[in-house]
């Protein structure tokens, strides 16, 4: 019997993946988004192989240059290669989380921020939605209070209070993300907990934790995945904003936001490139993620 169950599971998983893929392929919007996102993931993953420079090397005889054969996107105000800084910047966003100068975790800063927000937000949403009553009231009113604070302001308060570093940016992104995710998961939970199979589990005498995390949570994943993609976009935006305001990764990290901030001073003096490229990078990645999320949502709705 156990063997049979496993085969069944494998089969359904396979079907789900093909479904997902079919959705992706059938949506042109999703495909465009996917290509953009994959481009950035690719350059981020293989950054060291895509450039002869490091993001910190200063060619001090050639600062503020436009694109050339040596520096395909030009150089910044300290003579650093902009292409190199751009793709290493993508690494920090999408592929690695620099905890300290020596330790890095896999998974980008934006991804970590959203994952942590998901863990906390989903737990709070599940508890609130499933338990109801005063717990629900307490949790949701607290989160409402947080949502009343403008997002940018909340980011600034958090980062100024705990200092600027990659880990702190993750903390800021996740704190800001929690209320939205909790609300989403709670509303899904309110719907799912009225279903027959939840009744069945309760009759079986399963614990509340089992029901929340094994019965309800897996069934909320569709909307959560789409929401998470949008949220990664917001997180990238937040990183850009914080970096722009001088509260992102400390220099000389190739932080896109701070690259825009520093390059901005030279827009008026004839070298717009240092600000242009990272702005385009942020915009394209955010748009790519939005397209991907939109495409999947539309197609999956039609599919259903």
């Amino acid at each position, binding site marked *: 019997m156990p063997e049979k169950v496993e085969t069944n599971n494998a089969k359904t998983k396979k079907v789900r993946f093909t479904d997902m893929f079919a959705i992706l392929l059938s949506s042109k919007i999703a495909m465009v988004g996917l290509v953009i996102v994959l481009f950035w993931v690719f350059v981020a993953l293989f950054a060291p192989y895509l450039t002869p420079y490091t993001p910190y090397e*200063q060619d001090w005889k050639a600062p503020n240059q436009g694109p050339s054969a040596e520096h395909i996107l030009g150089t910044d105000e300290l*003579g650093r290669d902009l292409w190199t800084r751009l793709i290493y910047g993508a690494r920090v966003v999408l592929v690695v989380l620099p905890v300290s100068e020596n330790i890095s975790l896999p998974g980008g800063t934006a991804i970590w921020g959203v994952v942590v927000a998901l863990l906390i937000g989903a737990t709070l949403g599940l508890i609130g939605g499933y338990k109801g009553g005063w717990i629900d009231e307490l949790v949701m009113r607290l989160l409402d209070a947080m949502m009343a604070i403008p997002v940018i302001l909340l980011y600034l308060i958090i980062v100024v209070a705990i200092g600027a570093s990659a880990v702190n940016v993750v903390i800021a992104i996740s704190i800001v993300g929690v209320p939205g995710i909790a609300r989403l998961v709670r509303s899904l939970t309110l719907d799912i907990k009225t279903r027959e199979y939840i009744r069945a589990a309760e009759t079986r005498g399963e614990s509340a934790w089992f029901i929340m995390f094994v019965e309800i949570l897996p069934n909320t994943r569709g909307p959560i995945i789409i929401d998470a993609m949008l949220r990664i976009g917001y997180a990238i935006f937040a990183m850009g904003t914080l970096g722009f305001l*001088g509260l992102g990764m400390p*220099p000389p990290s190739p932080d896109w936001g701070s690259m825009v901030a*520093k390059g901005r001073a030279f827009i*008026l003096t004839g070298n717009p490139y240092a600000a242009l490229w990272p702005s385009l990078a942020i915009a394209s990645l955010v748009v790519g993620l939005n397209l991907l999320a939109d495409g999947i949502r539309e197609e999956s709705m039609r599919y259903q």
Partner: protein
Amino acid sequence: MKKRIHPAVHDMKSDMEKGKLSRREFLRYSTLLGVSAFTATQMAGLSWTSKAFAGNVKRGGTLKVATALQKIAHPATYSWIAASNVTRQVAEYLTLTDGKNITHPYLLENWIASDDLKTWTLNLRKGVTFNNGDTFNADDVIFTFNQWLDESVGSSMKGMIGGYLSANNIEKVNDYQIKLHLLVPEIAVPEHMFHYPAQILNHRTFEGDFLKAPHGTGPYTLETYREGELAVVKARSDYWQKGADGKALPYLDAMHFLDMGTETAPMISAIKSEDIDFIDLSDIGGTDIFRALKDDPEINILAAPTASARVLRMRVDVKPWDNEKVRLAMRKCHNHEKLLALAYMGQGLEGQDFHVYQLHPEYCEMPIPPYDPQASKKLLAEAGYPDGLEVNLAVGSGWPDVVRYAEVLKQDAIAGGFKINLQTMPNSQYWEKWTEVDFGITPWTHRPLGTMVLNLAYKADPDGNPAAWNETRWVDDEFSEILEKANGTLDVEKRRKLFCKLQKIQYDRGSIGIGYWRAVWMVSRSVVKGLEGHPNGYMLFNDVSIG
């Protein structure tokens, strides 16, 4: 009364004639010793040009200035030039050091120094009134001196003059004459009296907060001062100085100071759109503004070479900077040519890691220290860090050139065995703890004599503790002793010999690195007339008009 000319002036005149002393240095030293600038220029064989406009100055108008309006209370405690630039339109100084580093009497009629440089007689200008009607006299000057010297006020003036002057040694001869009996000889007394916190206060009304009783002798009255927002000064009609048209200054009706923070881009667009007329760059540098506006025909830019620097300072009372080998190793990681080129667009002079610059009169010629990461590594190993050293550097992110200095240094210091982590913070946060951080980059303003900053920042107060602005706590007995000698040595060549030693000591075992010396600019719309560049960025705007 026939004024006696200080005997040293004649010695200096012969020095100048032999070519030992430049005309400019002669002018400066003789005016310092109480010869009027007019007499001095005649002795130096230079013609005296006064700023006379042939009666075509237009009166009226409001000058709009972009600046940063900090919280202010007591002028003697200013640590921002921008703050003094607002209130210097209202309160005035005893002397005035002009854009060419020559000091003139101002609220003084003149000064006379004794031969031993220990007794200074200050003769006050008569007929000057405060804007509340009170007459300016010796009591105001003595009151203000006492404020500077009062421990509880916490003025940086104390560090500057406290070494040679105490409150008991100020003698009131009559209502318009004061004698300062110095503890040790000092040459820079007139220049100290133009240090930016040295505005003369009204002894009858001042109670610690200038904003509550803004009574000065200056050409304007303070109408509004809203921190972080707006300050307004309006012309008064009974100011003591006369303009070229024979009527009382100032030419302008009013000046508005608008707080535009430290971001330069809004200032550039504001001056282009004629929303502001002048940008006060005294505290924020202005490389980006210079670069953006240098070719604009509607904008007038005046440049001045200065002794203002971004000082890499290491606190010698904490590890690892207590070890002088570590500090020297950090200096060896300075590539001065690269630092000037990248951090300040090559606009200024290369630094030499001691706080004396090439245009100070007593500067002793020395080569630019080479970038030597190998030597740095060796020194670190000798200091007990054979595997290199990781340090945190505090950086105010609002000064773009400070950030660039830090980024270049971080990169160049890797080969020297240092791993520098940059800790950026808003400038205001840096100023809150600039004397406290272990390792940071502090902007130091221009001072016209080499001794001035050394007395402020690199010695002990009379009790033996580091002076108020000695941010690195570095006190070296030999250095202090030579500096004391230099403070009382008039002859430039003799001073230079002392400075050779001072510079070498500060390089070998001092507490700072200096990457480069900055040029500064005054940026205004070209309709603003009568501006003169000033190395401190002081806004000496009595003669300014809008054409």
